[in-house]
């Protein structure tokens, strides 16, 4: 029967067959939970009771009136801004700096800067607890030695957010550094030599030639840092501050988790999750449209 179909149809069927495992995985693990969450967002439920109460748009209305949620949103923005600055700009500068050092020292730097990436976030958080402890911790002792008052990093609203950013930045720095170094390796030396012949040197070379050629890598790092900043901060926040003090370190992902799994408000949490999904969807579409104009690939 199969042999009686035209070549075109046969190829189409084979194509469908090969794609189906991926589609199935997506359907089961991504789309089905998504739809289920959407449905749950209209209910009031604690996940264990056999009865679910339908409450329509109430969860969404409550969301818009919640000051805690606005703080979480503001924090999410702060995390993203700081982290984009820290782990995109700094690795670029570091890589630029490393081109002026000898090969062996460069390797040492790369290993040292990359090593935090292999430590798990949970372990890293506990380690940093010792660094941040104002009573006898590393930073506390240094501050006292130079005559400054040690900071209550994790318990003061002003510094807690920064402490979490430092932990996540410290961990993710090496990963982005490696990506940029790899991206640099993908730039053909002929282009660089040609530009050098035309007179581009040092900083000018970097700004007008290297960075534009690196733009696919930078674009990728930008997107991944954006999503990383919402997810990665969860572990240190969960282990060290519990979202506090006074909601200084909570972010949207932590709120979703907290509402559902700490306080058993599955419906409300689903409403927040769906709203976040919609917002990110819109952001993604904008990024896609922009990338046509901002990113330059070698083919042009």
């Amino acid at each position: 029967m199969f042999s009686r179909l035209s070549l075109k149809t046969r190829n189409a069927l084979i194509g469908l067959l090969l794609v189906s495992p991926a589609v199935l995985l997506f359907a089961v693990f991504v789309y089905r939970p998504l739809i289920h969450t959407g449905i749950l967002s209209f209910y009031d439920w604690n996940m264990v009771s056999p009865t679910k109460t339908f409450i329509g748009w109430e969860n969404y209305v409550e969301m818009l009136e919640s000051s805690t949620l606005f703080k979480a949103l503001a924090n999410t923005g702060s995390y993203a801004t700081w982290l984009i600055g820290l782990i995109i700009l700094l690795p670029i500068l570091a890589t630029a700096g490393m081109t002026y050092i000898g090969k062996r020292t460069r390797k040492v730097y790369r290993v040292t800067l990359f090593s935090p990436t292999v430590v798990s976030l949970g372990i890293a958080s506990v380690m940093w607890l010792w660094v941040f402890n104002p009573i006898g911790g590393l930073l506390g002792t240094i501050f006292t030695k130079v005559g400054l008052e040690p900071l209550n990093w994790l318990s003061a609203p002003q510094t807690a957010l920064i402490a979490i950013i430092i932990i996540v930045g410290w961990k993710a720095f090496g990963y982005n550094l490696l990506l940029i170094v790899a991206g640099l390796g993908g730039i053909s030396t002929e282009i660089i030599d040609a530009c050098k012949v035309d007179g581009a040197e040092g900083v000018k070379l970097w700004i007008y030639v290297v960075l534009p050629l690196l733009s696919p890598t930078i674009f990728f790092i930008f997107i991944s840092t954006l999503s990383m900043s919402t997810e990665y901060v969860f572990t240190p926040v969960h282990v060290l501050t519990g979202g506090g003090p006074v909601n200084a370190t909570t972010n949207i992902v932590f709120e979703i988790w907290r509402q559902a799994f700490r306080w058993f408000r599955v419906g409300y949490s689903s409403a927040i999750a769906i709203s976040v999904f919609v917002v990110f969807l819109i952001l993604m579409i904008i990024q896609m449209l922009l990338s046509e104009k901002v990113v330059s690939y070698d083919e042009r």
Partner: protein
Amino acid sequence: MRKSLVLFLVIAMVGIAFPALAEDVVTIEYWHINSATLGAKAVEESIARFEELNPHIKVIGRFQEGDYGGLLNNLQTAIAAGNPPAVAQVGYNFRLFAFEQLPHKPIADFAAIDPEYDDFINSFIDGIVELGQDADGLQRAIPLAISVPVLYYNADLFRAAGLDPDNPPQTWDDLRAAAKAIKDNTGEFGLGIQVQPNNNWLLQSMIESNGGWILDPTGAIGVNSPEVIEVFEMWQAMAIEDGSLPVVTDAEQEQAFMGGRLGMYLKTSAAMKTIANQAGFELRTGQFPAWGDKERRLASGGNALFIFATDEKQQQAGYEFIKFLSSKEGQTIWVEDTGYLPLVKGVQDDPKYLATYFAENPLTKAALDQLPSAVAWLPFPGPRGLEAEQVLVEAREAILNGADVAKELANAENRLNRILR
């Protein structure tokens, strides 16, 4: 072909029958929060001894991280997935939530089939078994652990500060003065108070000992009263004015105390074994301070055991296990490796059980002496009860960072009204 088929069928039938010929071993899961530093050994010993006495039951202990809150998280998921543990520890502050929202097998159901049920219930010290009963008096769970807040202090730092370690502070005014003395004379912090990111256990003792209420016995919200304001003002003054109380997370406080950088630490008696093992100085314990001459009221920490299994055999096995843990022998194993207090009669003074242990461990005296002052750990009622805890946690965080006490407590009252109504 026929011969091999017959042979195959015979082997298959024997293979199927074989497990049925074996002894019927029931395997149950026991969920607990006892980490290596807080009673894991006691759990292992209890399980081993229980299995010795009950060879047809196998118990698998599963540690849940994140304290009682973390265990409750995982419990929720397990129940939703249809795979609950047979027995689990539920913190007393979550007991109302568990009574009303989590499907479980009430202990009272076993009264009909266990001839020893009445003796079992009567074996507990007065007032304890009620912790496992709901508002109608139905016995749903069995209390396992009781702890009270005690004052741990560093005798070496006391002497260095010019204080007498044999006379620890008895009132909050004395405590404040002692903390200040330690800070002024030794440079180290004077007092730490146990805090948690998601509950108000120690705060409740501070408030109720001053005659105030978070929720009074009628259920009215009492956080905006002069007694509660006084408690927070004292706390804030020690942190900000005196500088004798560090504003840090509990983990950092504990690190500091065990490292000899904190003079006194108000914490649960359950941590006694851990602190005693790690303190590199002369450790002493004293009673929780009183407000002037007002009577102390100390929220008892700990947990009660619930049966969550839906299978009858597992429920029965779980009940047997709970009975063992509450027996004199079970309580002895439990108390010796933690800092929890015995809940059943006849164990404390009996040399066959715990009399020698208490005689040889003077650190336990403070907790034991305070047991008569123990009151129930307050759970917030209703479906949003768990969220209500957060309100006071945030008020405390704001106040310790300098916010106006009266304003914060008025705000807390409003938020609690909204959440609990």
